[in-house]
């Protein structure tokens, strides 16, 4: 393959890219230039548009506006096959392997697919499949035995899958390899292999784009940093020119003075105690206390065990080790019903999928936990009582509508969240676990939700906020626990903690964190 002079024509350019998903404006005019042989690090907080931009580069999403210039040619969008033909290979965070196909097929089928411009009515060349797969697997340090080539990917452990995914990306003459958080499940040794692979790729004039949280690795690899915030590219330049602190600041963006909502103080009575709690390979050795009227924040990366801990408290995930005490007495939480009976409420991260009956009315969504209180004389639900109960909840939660018959699907994210919280408040919970309480919620609604949270704490409810939105935790919590690698690695007070310290604890490798 001959490449034109890399300094003169960039391999890939994005100009004025916008992307909207329904009402969410995920990218708001992104300009990016990628050149052959360079390494790029795409940095930013969750939800800043990183994933969206790589999906646009790899043809998985079409931009709503803007143009893509690939090898000097203008396109309004790319298809997966166009991107592959141009040599844009992507290793997605979910690895995008096909579980029911063999390792060889996962690695090398793409070559033949692209050779045929995506046409499927073509003969399959098995000899070439196996040749290509062997070569690529060797490059990522896997010995391509016949057994490995023929193993179905669903039968492989995660760390091997990750390398198979990288092998697929380099199996063909790639010109840009995009890796979405490639090192989260790799060990140090495997990271070294990956860094070697990247070095080789760059030597072959291939551009590499990393999406990552791990600044340490970015500095080691070097190249250009690209920082995203709120759907915009806020900085681009040689990574060596930025300090860690500068990058963190660029990623989080302190332009608005954050206001602290928390004014009250927790009570003294201990409500709940987690004693050396563990759940399979999700988290282990978690010890923590929650007092009456206290707001406890829990944060960490998505694989840190924070999500699993939230689910375990709600009875959605099996607790395998340790114990939970409430009011000093040990309790069992194996099912959501047990958790509810103990007065523990859970507001899930995926509001629409797990929390709300989206096509049902506000009324139907607000009363399911108090059916026993709204029964009529025949033991059936009385619509009159239900209506009255729903009105009270709606007023309490300050919904922007008084019509309780409106389907919740028609409400804004903030109002939906308030319906869900209102449902729990109807049974006067003792503990409420809020999982990502403001994901997909606009700024105004955030404010109302934070006020509601403070209100609940004033009433003596113990609140656990599981979130990766650090400002949110700093504004609302009494204490913040940071999880990393399934453990609690740091605990800080909400009013004195700095975002940098929390970030450092979140991003540290498990070994560093243990120190």
């Amino acid at each position, binding site marked *: 393959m001959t490449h034109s002079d890399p300094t003169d024509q960039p391999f890939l350019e994005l100009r004025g890219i916008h992307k909207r998903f329904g009402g969410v404006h995920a990218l708001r005019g992104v300009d990016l230039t990628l050149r052959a042989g360079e390494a790029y690090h795409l940095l930013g907080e969750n939800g800043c548009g990183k994933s969206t931009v790589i999906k646009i580069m790899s043809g998985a999403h079409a931009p709503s506006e803007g143009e893509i210039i690939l090898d000097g040619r203008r396109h309004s969008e790319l298809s997966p096959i166009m991107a592959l033909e141009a040599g844009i290979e992507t290793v997605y965070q979910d690895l995008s392997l096909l579980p029911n196909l063999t390792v060889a097929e996962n690695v090398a089928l793409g070559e033949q697919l692209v050779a045929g411009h995506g046409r499927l009515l073509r003969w399959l060349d098995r000899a070439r499949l196996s040749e290509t797969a062997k070569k690529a697997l060797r490059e990522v340090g896997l010995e391509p*035995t016949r057994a490995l080539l023929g193993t179905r990917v669903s039968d492989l452990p995660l*760390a091997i899958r990750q390398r198979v995914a990288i092998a697929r990306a380099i199996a063909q003459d790639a010109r840009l390899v995009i890796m979405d958080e490639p090192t989260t499940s790799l060990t140090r040794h495997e990271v070294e292999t990956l860094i070697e692979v990247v070095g080789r790729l760059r030597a072959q004039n291939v551009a590499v784009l990393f999406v990552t949280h791990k600044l340490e690795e970015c500095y080691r690899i070097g190249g250009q940093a690209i920082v995203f915030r709120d759907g915009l590219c806020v900085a681009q330049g040689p990574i060596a020119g930025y300090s860690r602190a500068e990058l963190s600041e660029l990623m989080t963006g302190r332009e608005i003075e954050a206001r602290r909502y928390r004014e009250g103080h927790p009570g003294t009575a201990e409500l709940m105690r987690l004693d050396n709690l563990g759940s399979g390979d999700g988290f282990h050795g978690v010890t923590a206390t929650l007092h009456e009227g206290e707001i406890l924040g829990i944060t960490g990366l998505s694989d840190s065990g924070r999500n699993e801990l939230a689910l375990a408290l709600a009875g959605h995930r099996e607790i395998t080790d340790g114990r939970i005490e409430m009011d000093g007495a040990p309790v069992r939480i194996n099912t959501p019903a047990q958790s509810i009976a103990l007065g523990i409420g859970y507001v899930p991260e995926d509001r629409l999928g797990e929390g709300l009956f989206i096509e049902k009315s506000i009324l139907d969504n607000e009363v399911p936990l108090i059916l026993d209180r709204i029964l009529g004389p025949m033991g059936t639900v009385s619509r009159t009582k239900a209506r009255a109960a729903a009105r009270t909840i709606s007023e309490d939660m300050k919904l922007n509508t008084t019509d309780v018959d409106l389907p919740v699907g028609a409400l804004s994210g903030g109002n939906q969240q308030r319906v869900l919280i209102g449902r729990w408040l109807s049974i006067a919970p003792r503990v409420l676990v809020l999982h990502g309480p403001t994901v997909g919620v606009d700024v105004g609604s955030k404010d109302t939700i934070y006020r509601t949270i403070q209100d609940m704490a004033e009433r003596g409810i113990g609140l656990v906020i599981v979130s990766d939105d650090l400002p949110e935790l700093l504004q609302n919590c009494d204490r913040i626990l940071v999880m990393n690698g399934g453990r609690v690695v740091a605990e800080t007070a909400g009013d004195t903690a700095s975002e940098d310290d929390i970030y450092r604890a979140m991003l540290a490798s498990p070994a560093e964190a243990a120190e």
Partner: protein
Amino acid sequence: MTMTQSTFDNRNAAPPAGRHHPRAGLADTFTRHPELVSLCLLVAICVAVALINPAFLSPTSLIDMGRASVVTGLFALGVFSILAAGGIDVSFTAIAAFAMYSLTLFVLKVAPDLPMAAILLIAVAGGTALGAVNGWLVHELRVAALIVTIGTQYLFRGILLAFIGTVWLMELPPQMVAFGKASMLDVTTANGATVTLPWYFLVFPAAALLTWAIFNRTLMGRAIFATGGNPEVAARLGYDQRTVHLFVFAFAGGLAGLAGIVHVCANRMANPFDLVGTEIGVIAAVVLGGARITGGTGSVLGTVTGVLLITVVNNVLVLVGIPSTWQRVVVGAFILLAAAFFVTRRGKLQSRNRKPSP
């Protein structure tokens, strides 16, 4: 998490798959190749029945079963292709009925001299077109394939009965009668009767061979499995979902059209009310052959095994003195047992892979 990782880190030099394959026992082999379970079951039943009643192995009964397997077999190959892509089809019998009846009527009324080869070709083309309608609806409407094909089953059958005809056609065109009779093998039994294995029997193995070639020798086959494994990922990797959907449904439709004509010729009459209602039996055969209803698995060999198993069960129970009404009980029990076996085995295999022993 970290535990699992460090386990592999320490052993980085060793090829990973080596730890998964060699010690895989018999049960694992069955889990990986579910069709072997049905094959063993098939062999066991055949041996048992042959011991109880040697008449099972007589040419008459074997040829009977061979003939009976053709239509189910063609249907099953189509259903397998769709299941492999993660879909489902219950309209194929309606496609077959539509193709066979309207084509027979067309030949009788309009083109009595149409050669048999052309009739077969038109049946396949017509079935393919109707199948493609299914595929197009599934892809464009993004509605579950089950719902789409329930709809089209009613639609195709309704159009057939409302607009084309409801009268049984007892007199077939001569070329179709000849096709149904043409003998590949004549066997004279002890009591002097002649049983015939007709040439049309070969349609099933030929279709099976074609399906096998598509699945194992073309990119389409891999794309179908990829789609069944994870449609979102398959799309991301450049497997055109529209092509896959259109192809599997059109392919199943074509096989159904062919099955319809074979059915007419074999029975020497065309009954527009025929065939519809046998879908579940066909899907059962495919599932017994190792294809999972959730897609991405199965094989042609397994499907053929499943078809033979169902055919044998439907035909031999009488030979060993079990009332034919019990057929359904037996088939139902097989399906439940096979399903339960695979679910438990699968669970064990996966939990072992997640937590490799230290």
